[in-house]
């Protein structure tokens, strides 16, 4: 029986070192991400945001240090514990990472088939259709991944991540490459998931997404945590390097003398105008 600590933080990185040959990244990462909120990870390209997400989801092991997910160390899990934990989490990949030899339907269906081996055909169909509907890709269910645009592939990846109705969602740039309408729809979906009490860990470069969803921010730069905390606190951080990252990430060309919340609220207004 799995012994996940229910009130434990979502993630605890303790002295994590990860330096693949091609790109040395985390030298000594120590960080706690709480459960039950939307944490947005930001930073310039190459800061290690996607790697952070993959480490946190236990998809790649650190070279040293430990990563706990809900109180359990990824490296100590039994096969059974791993399967049970994964049933409660969804992961949306930056490039979709769809299984090329399966149709869109089969891509979404497989996690359900695996975790609910005794499910009837109708139950599976209902689960797939529901997840596809949430991601807005019902019309593409019969297609192959190679027939989809990158944006659509991300939406399929999202549907695959949602099919088990997970408590925790790891989202790697889910709105990148999507049009404004699809982005807005996804933000609404994520907002609803948040209000249902699900935990979102989100990597994004888009100010509108951050402004709408973030409860907490983690700012990364060159494999180090520059700052982390509640959204309002981080954006008020006076340190120039924080301001510089937020400025560049949020693609704000203007000087960064004011409150970032004001800048972000301007984005809201721009969005409203666009609508």
């Amino acid at each position, binding site marked *: 029986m799995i012994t996940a600590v229910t009130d434990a933080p979502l993630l605890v990185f303790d002295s994590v070192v990860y330096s693949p040959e091609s790109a040395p990244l985390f030298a000594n990462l120590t960080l706690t991400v709480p459960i039950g909120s939307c944490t947005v990870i930001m930073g310039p390209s190459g800061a290690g945001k996607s790697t952070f997400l993959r480490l946190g989801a*236990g998809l790649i092991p650190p070279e040293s240090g430990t990563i706990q997910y809900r109180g359990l160390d990824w490296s100590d899990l039994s096969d059974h514990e791993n399967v049970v934990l994964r049933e409660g989490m969804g992961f949306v990949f930056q*490039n979709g*990472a769809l299984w*090329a030899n399966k149709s869109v339907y089969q891509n979404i269906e497989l996690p359900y088939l695996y975790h609910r081996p005794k499910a009837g055909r109708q139950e599976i169909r209902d689960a797939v259709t529901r997840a596809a509907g949430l991601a807005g890709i019902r019309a593409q269910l019969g297609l192959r991944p190679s027939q989809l645009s990158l944006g659509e592939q991300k939406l399929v990846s999202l549907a695959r991540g949602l099919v088990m109705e997970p408590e925790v969602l*790891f989202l790697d740039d889910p709105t990148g490459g999507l049009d404004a309408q699809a982005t807005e729809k996804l933000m609404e979906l994520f907002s609803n998931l948040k209000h249902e009490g699900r935990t979102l860990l989100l990597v994004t470069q888009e100010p509108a997404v951050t402004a709408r969803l973030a409860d907490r921010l983690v700012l990364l730069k060159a494999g180090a945590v520059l700052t982390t905390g509640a959204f309002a606190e981080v954006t008020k951080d006076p340190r120039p390097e924080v301001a510089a990252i937020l400025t560049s990430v949020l693609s704000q060309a203007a000087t960064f003398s004011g409150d970032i919340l004001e800048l972000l609220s301007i984005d809201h207004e721009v969005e409203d105008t666009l609508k």
Partner: protein
Amino acid sequence: MIAQWGEKAIQAWKDAFYGFGFFWLVIRESLKLNSHRGVGWRVVVMQILFTGVNALAIILLIAVSLGAVVIFEGAQLLALGQTDLFYNLLVTIITRELGPLLTAFIIMARSGVAIATELSNMVISQEIEAYMAVGINPISYLVVPRFLGVTVSMMALNMLFSVGGLAGAWVIVQFLQPLPANEYFSNLLIHLTVTDLVASLAKSVAFGMVIAVVSSFHGFQAKQSSTEVPVLVIKAVGRGFALLIVVNVIITLGYLL
């Protein structure tokens, strides 16, 4: 120069150690196939279809051709009264030595290449991570079905090679140098011992395992770029062929001793 050799030796030792660990994992997961929630068997069937059924024609062609040449050339021994030598030669070449090895080479070239290419592409496109993300163990879902499919296909094709090489080839040879069926098959059964069949079967099982594990192992070595794929496939084929020959020698020595 010496330092480079040393580094290469250390790396080769590490690879071998890691490879044995991988082999052990595959064996362990294979024993648990029934508990893999029913999704693995479909891949086993598909692998048998690709490795076994789709290779039938090429295996039969090679078996019959090789058998016909051996029977045709060896039949001269019959004229010299060397009946035992002729039939022993046939069984040794077709059933025990060349049959399993040639079949393994063909499967390595077809299925080994396909497995290494497919898996390395899946690593690069993060499909393997996607399996892990939903809780599916890539070894049990991707490698075990290929391992079982290739091993079963290798056993079946090896048997087919023997039948094709001994019986099919006899039919062809009738057009050139008639050999009475009664005499040929009864002599063949006398000289074909259980030990020969066991050695042939042991080779086919071992070769199937080697092909599946070596190609999967190299497929999983991919990291980021599609340019790694051909390099890894070449490595898989080269090392696969070398290992097949080594395993063949070990089993043959075991048989002879």
